[in-house]
């Protein structure tokens, strides 16, 4: 058995592998503990309240879901745009997409007030609700990407790869648009009322998904003691830089257009200038650590060895960190800012009207949120060991044969 499991690994390292599994398992167990505790005592044990109704679990869940769609990008570039380097990475990309989505959805479901009624959510659809549409998109994503993976792994089904690849491509674009629209539809809240929300989520998903892919990929290469081909690395590095740059660009446009509308000034002031933790997380987390620093790392000329580290691991890791920061600012920051009930008035009430709402996530929220990452990690670790997800390519020979691609 062990022999079989190690089939596509250059070294078995079973002990360390089990340690990895245990680590992932522990995190997931922590989430289950939090879940059952909350199920029993209610959300009173969380830092969430009637003002901040979506907290840390949602930050993680939405990040994972958005990254899931982006992780599929690598496969799409391979199937839809026919790039060989990406084609050979399609299975890994598809698998990661599924693992990320599973992790994100797990948190979302475990955080529900009535998770026992999940079946209601699955059988009663209000088609006016973008949330309901999201559920349809998520379920469809599992099916389509699952089938796509099967065609990639079974040579007899090769003919289906392309049509399914296309379907997956358009499906995931819709999925991320729909996820972004969850916020875009909240017209009453100053922080979300923008048509740019959905396209911005799509661009960000490209960056986050590719970043996760690159981190996992370099992890796998390291584990197996292989070095990633320089050409492949350069391509991915450039692609990540484009996505990170585009995300930054969209963020700037988003805030500039908000500044254009006088009624959004207060909110912009809050996020950009005097929103305390949210302002800090925005500038330090989202913009600097998640945007500018990775770009510098990606483009800074360095010695060969240092480059390896920066390109494939550190830069995408920072992008992921920036992604969490962005979600925190968007989701929690957007709620912390008071709802504009009576514009032009100072408002006060027992229900915290007119005040900046505070939020302090409790340990249970952390456990739940990390559980999503744990699920993704565990699924990935198992999948890469059991199936052939290691990218198989010989970039140089391809390059010389096809000139360029």
């Amino acid at each position, binding site marked *: 058995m062990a022999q079989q499991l190690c089939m596509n690994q250059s070294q078995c390292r079973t002990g360390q592998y089990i340690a990895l599994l245990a680590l992932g398992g522990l995190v997931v167990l922590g989430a289950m503990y939090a879940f059952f505790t909350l199920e029993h005592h209610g959300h009173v044990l969380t830092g969430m309240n009637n003002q901040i*109704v979506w907290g840390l679990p949602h930050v993680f869940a939405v990040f994972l879901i958005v990254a899931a769609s982006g992780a599929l990008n690598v496969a799409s570039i391979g199937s839809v745009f026919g790039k060989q380097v990406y084609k050979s990475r399609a299975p890994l990309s598809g698998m990661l997409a599924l693992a990320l989505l599973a992790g994100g959805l797990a948190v979302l479901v475990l955080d*529900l*007030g009535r998770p026992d009624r999940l079946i*209601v959510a699955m059988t009663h659809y209000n088609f006016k*609700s973008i949330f309901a549409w999201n559920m349809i998109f998520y379920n469809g994503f599992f099916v389509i990407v699952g089938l796509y993976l099967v065609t990639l792994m079974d040579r007899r089904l090769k003919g289906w790869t392309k049509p399914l690849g296309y379907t997956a491509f358009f499906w995931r674009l819709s999925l991320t648009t729909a996820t972004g629209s969850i916020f875009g539809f909240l017209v*009453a809240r100053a922080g979300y009322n923008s048509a740019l929300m959905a396209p911005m989520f799509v661009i960000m998903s490209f960056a986050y998904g590719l970043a996760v892919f690159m981190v996992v990929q370099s992890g796998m290469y390291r584990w197996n003691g292989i070095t990633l081909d320089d050409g492949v690395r350069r391509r991915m590095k450039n692609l990540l830089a484009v996505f990170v740059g585009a995300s930054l660009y969209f963020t700037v446009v988003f805030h500039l257009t908000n500044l254009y509308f006088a009624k959004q000034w207060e909110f912009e002031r809050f996020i950009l200038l005097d929103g305390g933790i949210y302002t800090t997380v925005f500038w330090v987390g989202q913009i600097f650590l998640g945007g500018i620093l990775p770009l510098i790392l990606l483009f800074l000329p360095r010695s060969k060895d240092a480059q390896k580290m920066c390109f494939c691991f550190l830069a995408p890791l920072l992008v992921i960190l920036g992604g969490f920061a962005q979600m925190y600012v968007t989701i929690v920051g957007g709620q912390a800012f008071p709802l504009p009930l009576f514009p032009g008035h100072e408002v006060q009430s027992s229900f915290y009207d007119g005040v900046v709402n505070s939020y302090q996530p409790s340990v249970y929220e952390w456990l739940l949120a990390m559980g999503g990452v744990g699920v993704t990690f565990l699924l990935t670790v198992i999948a890469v060991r059991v199936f052939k997800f290691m990218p198989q390519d010989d970039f140089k020979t391809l390059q010389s044969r096809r000139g360029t691609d």
Partner: protein
Amino acid sequence: MSESMNSKPEGRREFLKTSAVVAGVTLGPGVLFYGVAQSRAPEEGASSANRWGMLIDTTKCGDGCDDCVTACNTENGLSGHTGPQDSQWIRKVDIKDLRTGYVQSLPMMCQHCENAPCVDVCPTGASMKREDGIVLVDRHSCIGCRYCMMACPYKARSFVHEPLTDQNPEVPRGKGCVESCTFCVQRVDRGEQPACVEACEAKGHKAMIFGDLRDPESEVSKVLKSTDSVEVRADLALNTGVRYQGI
């Protein structure tokens, strides 16, 4: 689905007959009902012939008075606590005009929007609007996702953070579900007024008038016709059932 959520637009003639009777009657000791001319017998479903609504005159609303809030808590079995995780179906909001310094106090609750954002976003259809315009949460299909709370422009909704005890059997509530003002649907279905309106009346302020907006003869319709009133956040075009006068 609970009884009150069924909607039976048919049987209007029967219902008009009942209404006529109800209209002429004083129900309960010393309580005269305004604008219930078109109310209906409890066994009938909500009808689109009615649209329940309210007009709040902020100039009559007492500064520091919160009798409406207390009455709501008692009627609906709320604790009355005001921590960040406690439910508040109705609250007193103090507003001060930043330019003129003019201070007002007013009650704020679910505005029973015609184009209710909470109903639109709810994935399961638990947030629903009855034929007569009352917006409710179906306790049995709410999954507690809180999307409706994100969508409501008036912060009208609360999430039940803790297990509940000592509940009013007429007002089903439950941990893990979202809830909000129901216009005291259990009372309205009996032909009575919401608890807050009754309390305001009893205190002698009479800042709240409840009734059928579709009935031109109801008091609320008449006052609305003769005075200027506004919706809060009118820019969102939700056609709220609750309107304000004096702001």
